[in-house]
């Protein structure tokens, strides 16, 4: 990113009740859980340094979404960021950034840690993710 992803205007950021307020106040939060933001942040960081190509990732995301929809005609259990994470795993593996076997082993190791290990421990500040339940105006 070239240092200007848009302008943070303090006057607008403080206007938390207006319709033009920041995303979290304009209907819903951007991420429903810290792991979603982690998957998002990883993807943008890898894209910024050119280690993955956005269009490769997008095509992987389209395939994951298409495969999920084909397997779940009722739409039950939909998670956009699960598709995103799988697309990122595949893109990173295809680019040789991670070894799929090492990734699987690491995930197994982490999953086997005793209860109480905080898988979100390294996430950024702003831990309000789970406090607000989004109430989308759902069609």
């Amino acid at each position: 990113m070239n240092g200007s992803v848009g302008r943070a205007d303090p006057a607008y950021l403080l206007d938390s009740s207006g319709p033009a307020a920041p995303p979290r106040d304009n209907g819903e939060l951007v991420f429903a859980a810290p792991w979603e933001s982690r998957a998002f942040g990883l993807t943008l960081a890898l894209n910024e340094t050119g280690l993955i190509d956005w269009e490769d990732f997008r095509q992987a995301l389209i395939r994951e979404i298409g495969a999920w929809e084909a397997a779940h005609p009722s739409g039950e259990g939909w998670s956009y960021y699960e598709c995103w994470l799988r697309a990122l795993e595949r893109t990173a593996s295809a680019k040789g950034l991670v070894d799929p076997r090492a990734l699987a082993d690491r995930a197994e190791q982490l999953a086997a840690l005793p209860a109480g290990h905080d898988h979100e421990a390294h996430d950024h500040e702003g831990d309000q993710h789970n406090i607000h339940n989004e109430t989308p105006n759902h069609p």
Partner: protein
Amino acid sequence: MTTAADHIDPAVRAEALASLLIERGLVDQATMDNFIKTYEQSVGPMNGAKVVARAWTDPAYEERLLADGTGAIAELGFKGPQGEHIVVLRNTPKVHNVVVCTLCSCYPWPVLGLPPSWYKDPSYRSRIVREPRAVLAEFGLELGEDVEVRVVDSSSEVRYMVLPMRPAGTDELAEEDLAALVTRDAMVGVAEVAAP
């Protein structure tokens, strides 16, 4: 082909992927956190609202916006990922545009931030194409029979943003006050801008 450890909780898999990439020095935590913070706090529909308000008050700007969305939006300082090919479509009393990405979730991040969950949902992505009037009615937008509804599909080549109609009775409002009326939903095309 199944993804590695597909049965494991996504929070654990995200941690596993991040830890391996960080150990190899391919990403760093601060860069990730910066992206997350930016899209959680700084980039959102308030950017698009300023673009709309400028277009409503400055006909020359509106003309540039409709001719070259990305360029006119950059004039206000809004640029970045997913903003390279923004096309702005103007709603009129006769034509109502509504945006979808049928394949994934393409969306003009610099002006609208990240998309809301309903925009990414399989049901919106399929139904808005098949039965746009019914879906718009569920959002509370009833359009007259004489209004043509155009559903436009965003992609990697084009990210659409809607320029909604300026509501009646706002002639006296300043640009900043107009921006406060503009909602994300109006810029996706599932709503109109209500008068104050």
